[in-house]
């Protein structure tokens, strides 16, 4: 473990990871694993699993979470800074370049047609993402109610998405507490 490493090497590795992944997030994990576990042997599979678990329960961008975590693990604060910069610089450069030309491009009739088609593609992609995420939760009455209410409120009301998320979190805490109390009670009434 922890073969030779220096900050420059760390930077270029994450630069490569940022430049080679489309979609980011989970799509990135196989490439990242290959680089940092198999090739460089900086971290092991347990660490990758740990990053995924931490990312599930913290906000933020998975690519940045992973880069920060691995960078810190192998070279402290400097390492986390260098790895994070590495993973975002390819995006920053590519998108800056594209956006300089996109306005001129969009005025071309055929490009405008293409973007009209892309609108449908994006709508489908977002729906697919929601379906994929919903596989990760356990659907009971509580979860279904929260899902339906947050969907309807976001669709029909002028209410900030952040409030809807906070309300979801608070209701989750209340619900978890009630379940906890109920379990404690049944334990008392049925001493087995």
């Amino acid at each position, binding site marked *: 473990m922890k073969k030779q490493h220096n900050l420059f090497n760390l930077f270029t590795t994450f630069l490569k990871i940022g430049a080679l992944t489309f979609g*980011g997030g989970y799509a990135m994990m196989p490439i990242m694993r290959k680089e940092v576990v198999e090739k460089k042997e900086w971290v092991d599979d347990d660490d990758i699993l740990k990053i995924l678990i931490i990312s599930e329960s913290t906000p933020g961008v998975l690519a940045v979470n992973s880069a920060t975590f691995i960078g810190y693990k192998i070279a402290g604060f400097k390492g986390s800074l260098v790895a994070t910069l590495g993973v975002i610089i390819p995006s920053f450069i590519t998108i800056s370049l594209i956006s300089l030309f996109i306005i001129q491009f969009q005025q071309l009739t055929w490009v405008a047609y293409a973007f*009209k088609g892309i609108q449908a593609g994006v709508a489908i992609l977002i729906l697919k993402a929601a379906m994929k995420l919903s596989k990760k939760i356990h659907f009971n009455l509580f979860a279904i109610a929260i899902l339906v209410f947050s969907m309807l409120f976001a669709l029909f009301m002028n209410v900030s998405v952040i409030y809807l998320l906070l309300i979801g979190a608070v209701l989750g805490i209340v619900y978890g507490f009630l379940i906890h109390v109920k379990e404690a009670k049944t334990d008392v009434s049925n001493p087995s």
Partner: protein
Amino acid sequence: MFLTLLNLFWMFFKIGLFTFGGGYAMIPLIKDELVGGGYITADALINFIGISESTPGPVAVNMATFIGMSQFQDMGIGYALLGAFATTLGVVLPSFIIILLIASLGSKFLESKIVNHAFLGLKPAVIGLIISVSVGLIVHAALPNIDFKSLNFDFSGFNFKGLVILVIVGGVTIFYKKMSPVKIILFSAILGMLIYGLIPW
């Protein structure tokens, strides 16, 4: 200028802080803060998502850079880059700080019951929000004059070509479940060119 930059930074900091579950979970927040605040149009946001999906790099960072670049484009490339810097830094910083704290202090906090319970409500809420965005987009593609927020169900302006593209792309992605986002975007772009460009009515 400086205030706008600060504002952009702060909006994307909030977006980064409240994004649970990857780039797509960001979209309801971006729509709320930036389309709602009049920084970008709903159509521009969809184009940004399409391009961010089909270029390398994390979608969240791509979108932040894109929107930042778009804000000061008329003032020259230097200002545009400054805008992109503000938004990208904003979206990255919450992740960076939180993971740094966890990596240095340990993840005991995450194992607490309160955090686990909060996610019981947070996860379905995120999914509901993402579904609301896609429902809005799907309806908009076929019936562009319907406005859910003002309960204005105006069925005029029915876009048959939009519906056809939606059905084809939807059908193909149901059939080929493993189709990557890049391919879905490319496929729908070609379909858009064919249907809008070659069919006369």
